[in-house]
């Protein structure tokens, strides 16, 4: 019985390994392409490890398009939204979980049900609204809505806060702490890990967003990184400069890959929770 289990496990391990090759293979191939000379990508049979390795494309990309300003714009949007938005979201989650005020549950339900409104259903009037303010082709339409908070984050933090005993809050109330201090020095430190995980997930979502930037940003130097690499693809595919395109794309996914590898435990845990709770 035991040896049969071992054979099955070995078989499963091999299958998982083959699956892993399929998952990671295309990405490795992307990396390999980016390290080749322009002509070498057309070699048949394909070469996986370029010889010699060309790092030249990683120099060229900075001149070939507004990659640097793309990174800058993406960082500005993602950092400002997640920092301010996490503050407003966690404050609201605290209020929903621990304070008493009229119509609290109705407002919360209203927020939750708004989650089923898809972005495409509101993007046209939103565009019109921001264009009246003269905000088209600026980063503002991509920043300002996020500053008001993120309902998904509020939902998960509120859920998480239910494990924080009310007695702590009540005791501090009687001691005469202000309501903001109840949040900032008592509640927030307790929910920091959950906040961090949600912040990372949100950051990744904004970093990888494509639809809203493509609606608002026209000038090359205003575009986010994702739009810049899409333009690389459109421009340089005609010249079949695939190494250049792949090098730029690698740059676009590298930051999230690093964040993921560093925080993989927290990210994977909080994602797993979202399914069980959802």
């Amino acid at each position, binding site marked *: 019985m035991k040896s049969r289990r071992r054979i*099955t*496990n070995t078989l*499963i391990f091999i299958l*998982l390994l083959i*699956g892993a090759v399929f*998952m990671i293979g*295309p*990405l490795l*191939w*992307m990396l390999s*392409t980016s390290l080749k000379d322009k002509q070498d990508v057309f070699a*048949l049979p*394909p070469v996986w490890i370029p010889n010699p390795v060309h790092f030249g494309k990683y120099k060229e990309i900075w001149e070939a398009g507004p990659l640097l300003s793309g990174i800058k714009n993406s960082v500005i949007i993602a950092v400002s939204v997640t920092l301010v938005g996490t503050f*407003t979201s966690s*404050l*609201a989650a605290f*209020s*929903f979980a621990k304070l*008493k005020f009229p119509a*609290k549950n109705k*407002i919360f339900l*209203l*927020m939750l049900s*708004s989650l*089923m*409104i*898809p*972005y*495409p*259903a*509101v993007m*046209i*009037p*939103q*565009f019109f609204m921001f264009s009246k303010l003269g905000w088209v082709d600026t980063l503002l339409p991509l920043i300002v*809505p996020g500053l*008001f*908070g993120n309902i998904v984050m*509020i939902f998960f933090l509120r859920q998480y806060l239910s494990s924080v005993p009310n007695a702590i809050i009540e005791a501090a109330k009687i001691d005469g702490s202000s*309501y903001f201090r109840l949040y900032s020095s008592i509640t927030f430190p307790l929910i920091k890990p959950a906040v961090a995980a949600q912040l990372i997930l949100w950051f990744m979502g904004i970093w*990888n967003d*494509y*639809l809203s930037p493509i609606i608002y940003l026209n000038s090359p130097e205003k575009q986010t990184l*994702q739009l810049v*690499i*899409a333009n*690389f693809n459109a421009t340089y*595919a005609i010249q079949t400069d*695939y190494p250049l395109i*792949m090098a730029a*794309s690698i740059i*676009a*996914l590298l930051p999230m*890959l690093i964040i*993921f590898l560093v925080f993989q435990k927290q990210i994977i845990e909080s994602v*797993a929770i*979202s*399914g*069980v709770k*959802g």
Partner: protein
Amino acid sequence: MNQKSNLYRKEKIYGFLFILPPLLGLLIFTLYPMIYSIYGSFTDWDGLGQMNLIGLSNFKDLWTDELFHKALFNTLFMMLGIPIGIVLALLLALGLNRGVPGTTAFRVIYYVPVISSLAAVSIMWNWAYNGDYGLVNQFLDLFGITGPNWMANKYTVKPALIIMAVWKGVGYTMLLYLAALQSVSRSYYEAAELDGANSFKAFWHITWPMVRPVTFFIIVTNIIGGSQIFTEMNIMTPTGGPEYASASVVFYIWQKAFGNFQMGYASAMAVVLGAFIFVVTLIQFRMNEKQSFDVD
């Protein structure tokens, strides 16, 4: 007594103050535009001139608009990836749940495509689907199969996008299943083993029912996400593909609204999309209620 009611009044004010930003955000950036979308769908809105009410005219046009039908069909067709992804993800999760060596590494590897930028991944797959030099056809060549020029062929462009979507999403689904499997108590399986049930029976009568809520959650979120698919086609087939075979609903909305400035018409499509998602979510709520009733 007086002090206590004073405290409560203060709490009411602060409690409301703290939730005011997201509430305002919701009203300004979601609810107001939503209502405006519905209103706009009954007008000839072009983003510049006056908006004139034209009744159901936009919706009638949708009914006979061949491109809209194509986009709708394509969007639904590409949802075939959902069951494929579910089966693969569940198999992977079952494998990983046995505690084979390297479980953590596998979890990370399968999750990498999920966190990767969709734009970058689309660019990469577009190159991988290249007819002559792409990775996919070179792989098929090992088995003596001559692959098509995937993105340029109206029969292969949708399957190509489905394969990519499964590749990108399977890690996420696997993770949700893995978490669900880990919460199933071992004692069920021990009891089943005592009763002489084989592993297939154990799966069918224990595992599958236990993970049903997760399956349901995955189906619903995937339908909602799948109905809004856009980035892939925008990058891989900027014109909507051969004979518009890869255009999605959101792609068509985007073209009409920001390419042709037919904002009223695009709003009508957006309203249809919103209604579709509303119904799917409603079904989820209903089924969830039913399910928790079952468990009781």
